């Protein structure tokens, strides 16, 4: 198992540079976060459609904050060669 992972990561590093792999890892957390965030927002919009406008505004604010983390990873992938 360890060998397989080692070979996989060695192959991955041969194709892509470390910074690109780092960006992939940096995208996991915000991906989960936005998934939860939007899922919960849609759930509450379905439960209370009259509050949809307010929920949507707050959803976008939250997405803005969470998304920034993934984008920091993206920018750092370019800066750190």
């Amino acid at each position: 198992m360890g060998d397989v992972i080692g070979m996989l990561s060695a192959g991955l590093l041969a194709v892509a540079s470390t910074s690109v792999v780092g960006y992939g890892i940096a995208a996991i957390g915000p991906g989960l976060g936005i998934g939860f965030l939007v899922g919960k927002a849609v759930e509450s919009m379905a439960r209370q459609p009259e509050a949809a406008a307010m929920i949507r505004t707050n959803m976008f604010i939250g997405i803005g904050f969470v998304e920034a983390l993934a984008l920091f990873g993206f920018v750092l992938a370019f800066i750190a060669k």
Partner: protein
Amino acid sequence: MTGALLAAARPGFKTPTIEDFQWPCLTPNWKIFGFGLCVNREVLLILLAGAVVLVLFLIAFRNPQMIPTGLQNFMEVVVDFVRNAIVLEVIGHEGLGFVPYLTTVMFFVFVGNVFGIIPGLQFPVNSHMAIPIFLAMMTWVLFNAVGIRRHGWGGYSKMVLFPAGVPWPMYILVTPIEFVSTILVRPVTLSVRLLANMIAGHLLLTIFFLGTAYLLQPSITALFAAASFALGTALVAFELFVAALQAYIFTILTAVYLAGALSSEH
């Protein structure tokens, strides 16, 4: 997808990099007070974006009608959206004075972003750090100035650094975090979000259309060129969506920061 991957794997294909965002100077190397003045494509596009915003608003509201038609109708929808969906929703009635500023910023950011997919221009203005960081600094100065004017220096510092309802030993932890997150990090995240979205979008479009051009040669790979072109075309529509969304998020976060500076309890 497959097409672009194949193209990247074959020798001879030059993948677009961050260096492709640098444009050569169109003017001789002028100096103003020791600073280099370089007019390149980016500078021309910024000026064009400013001119487009100015001209659209001037034409739309030069002779406003009671029953709006055409362009005036469209621009009123934009102003109405900022007023109702952003300012009244986030700040409330006391924020109505910020509607002109927020509308202008949103429209400028949107026009700058959408230049990335307009044939002939095809370069998002906001993919150079100078523009987003300047817009973010304006937001930073604005919300701090509004907060200081509303609460005074002492009141505003106390509001930002010592949030109410926290047991006093916690201030050892909370105060540095609040200082970093409110004063230092806000302009950085605001600008990096816009910048990275535009760089990523431009790189995506470049790689798929370069891939199409590279694969279009008399061989079996020409079949993959169609796939690359189809995905690239779909991404153009996606970029239009991203351009509007990022302009919206920039504006609404500016409004959120203003609301935070204006709030009395926080």
